[in-house]
């Protein structure tokens, strides 16, 4: 009873809180990192070195008037931000933060669950997040947000194909779909999969950036030109939910990339015994550190690169990344058979 109900519930509660706090502080992290790249300081006034800025932002957004356009579809309008955020949160159910640890006399695995189609679950839930964007554009009852949301959606589903191809070749390498199984396959191979499948790594990261609408693929969002984007009609907390969902998606991509390519909770070079002293660092700290590296790269790229035009973005997804993905599958298959 305790093991099947209480402990998972506790884990869920802890994880959800942690994710939501992390997402809120991602806002501050982004502003600070981009500011430091641009030789300025970022938020400094609220709290020591601006540390309480996200709390100020949250209070401001909650205190704002909640405007609903009159002829908008009430149910869909309310549901859209929720439909964007919830999939981003429930993906964390299969992400392994660490191996089994001893807590209060019990052996507790540091993940909520390990289903044997874990990777497919991640992709499936990610594909559900697309609905929120479509519904947001639709519920605004105006032509331009609708077209903007359809464009953003088209971008998302195109890059989903590329990312799924990459994941197929990764499943070939690991031999299993379960997330914990993939980490254990890296431990058994003694090498992170980033070294075994470097092309897949790069393409996954690029696809991940496009999936989360981050620069340089943020044209539908940064459409400051004309159509104000799919979230024009939203204000206050609903608007905040869209951006929380974007940051949550970023964290999802980072954690998934960590699990698949950087060995999850494994220390660098798990096969090399000489580096055993690195085991002093708890496994979940390694995991968080690697995730943080990915998040930093997300922000770094946003600060540096210009953004792609929409048609160039789609061309990149369909004409470059998908053929690379398919080629990667073929090469992986051949290598697997020969070795």
């Amino acid at each position, binding site marked *: 009873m305790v093991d099947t109900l209480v402990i998972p519930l506790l884990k869920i509660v802890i994880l959800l809180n942690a994710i939501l706090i992390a997402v809120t502080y991602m806002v501050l992290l982004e502003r600070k990192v981009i500011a430091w790249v641009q030789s300025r300081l970022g938020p400094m006034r609220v709290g020591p070195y601006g540390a309480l800025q996200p709390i100020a932002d949250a209070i401001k957004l909650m205190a704002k008037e909640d405007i609903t356009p009159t002829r908008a579809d009430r149910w869909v309008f309310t549901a859209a931000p929720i439909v964007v955020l919830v999939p981003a949160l429930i993906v964390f159910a299969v992400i392994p933060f660490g191996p089994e640890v001893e807590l209060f006399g019990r052996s507790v695995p540091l993940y909520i669950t390990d289903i044997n189609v874990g990777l497919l679950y991640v992709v499936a839930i990610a594909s559900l997040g697309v609905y929120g964007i479509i519904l947001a554009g639709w519920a605004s009852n105006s032509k331009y947000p609708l077209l903007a949301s359809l464009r953003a959606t088209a971008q998302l589903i195109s890059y989903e194909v590329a990312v799924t191809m990459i994941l197929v070749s990764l499943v070939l390498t690991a031999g299993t779909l379960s997330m914990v199984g993939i980490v254990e396959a890296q431990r058994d191979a003694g090498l992170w999969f980033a070294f075994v499948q470097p092309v897949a790594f790069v393409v996954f990261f690029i696809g991940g950036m496009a999936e989360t609408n981050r620069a340089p693929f943020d*044209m539908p969002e940064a459409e*400051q030109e*004309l159509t104000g984007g799919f979230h024009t009609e939203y204000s206050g907390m609903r608007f905040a939910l869209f951006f929380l969902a974007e940051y949550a998606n970023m964290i999802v991509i980072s954690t998934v990339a960590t699990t698949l390519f950087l060995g999850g909770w494994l220390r660098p070079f798990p096969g090399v015994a000489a580096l055993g002293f690195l085991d002093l660092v708890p496994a979940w700290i390694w995991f968080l550190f690697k995730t943080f590296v990915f998040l930093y790269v997300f922000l770094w790229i946003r600060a540096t690169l*210009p953004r792609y*035009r929409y048609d*160039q973005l789609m061309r990149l997804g369909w004409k470059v990344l998908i053929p690379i993905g398919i080629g990667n599958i073929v090469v992986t298959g051949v290598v697997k058979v020969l070795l």
Partner: protein
Amino acid sequence: MQVEVPSSMFDTSELVLNMGPQHPSTHGVLRIVLRLDGERVVDSDIVVGYLHRGIEKLSENRDWTQIILLTDRMDYVAAASTNLVYCETVEKLMSVEVPRRARYVRTILAELQRIASHCLWLGTHAMDIGAMTVFLYAFRERELILDLFEEYCGARLTYTALRIGGLPLDIPPGWDTKVLSFCDIMDSKLGEYETLLTHNRIWLDRTKDIGVIDGPDAIGLGLCGPTLRGSAVPRDVRKDEPYAAYDEFEFDVPIGVKGDTYDRYLVRLEEFRQSLRIIRQAIDGLPEGPIVGKVPRLIKPPAGETYHVNESPKGEIGFFIASDGRSTNPYRLRVRPPSLCNLQGLRRLIRGHLVADVVALIGSIDIVLGEVDR
């Protein structure tokens, strides 16, 4: 095999879209009415006048020195350049000779202004295309120039830095060494901008083959300045009709090849370097002497009219002045604004491109609405 598709299903009529006067990317109050086919611009209509303040009419009621303040506010990004061309036009009308030291300092100010204006151009152009960091880097350098100007004449934006016949003030002691150290800083920062943009694949994708216009067409449209030079037309007033002290300095005029946005970007980037070259030569060879020529207390040019051009950072700026010889105000003052002439070309440039390119092209022609509307 012909496929019959009911036309009502894929109805693609033209869409009229307004990039209104309030817009983050139009660098001022510019209105562009676009006619789109899907996402392609079929045609456009450019509506200006939102910043019209009647400067030409106002100057008919101001005396000749007061008009210098009005010229500050036209191209507010590069005020000293407009000051310069106005003062030189009046000096031409009055046949006043400007002493050599004053001409040298005027050249230094004009070139510093060119660098400042191009910094702002680079920052805003890059930011519109998405590289937001370049905006802050470019403005950091622009701040250094603004500090130099503040030390010289007390103002950061609207300088009124020149007077008819010369300069109001001599340069403060130590200013020339500060300018030289700025030149060194700027050289290294130019390398930074190049690293971030010039060979960046995304930048190339966004600027190559966008807004291509060849030389004869560009001349026909009346384009000027770096916009014209990007189309391989070697026209630069500093070389063709030298003014201030430009005939005493050695510098090159960068010219593009194809006339696309990337070429215009490269031209302006190289103009940074040439400006630094000119400033260094001017500081090194700065002669001693008076800073203002023989000008009567009450400036009353003889009756007549004249037209004089300069190469401002935006392009070829011209002033036409008609004086009736009796009053202390001009009879008529007319500006040939390079930004307006370049803006005329925008309609031709954006035809056939996507909506996202419109923003890139507005940045590429480098306009200031204060000058367009006056």
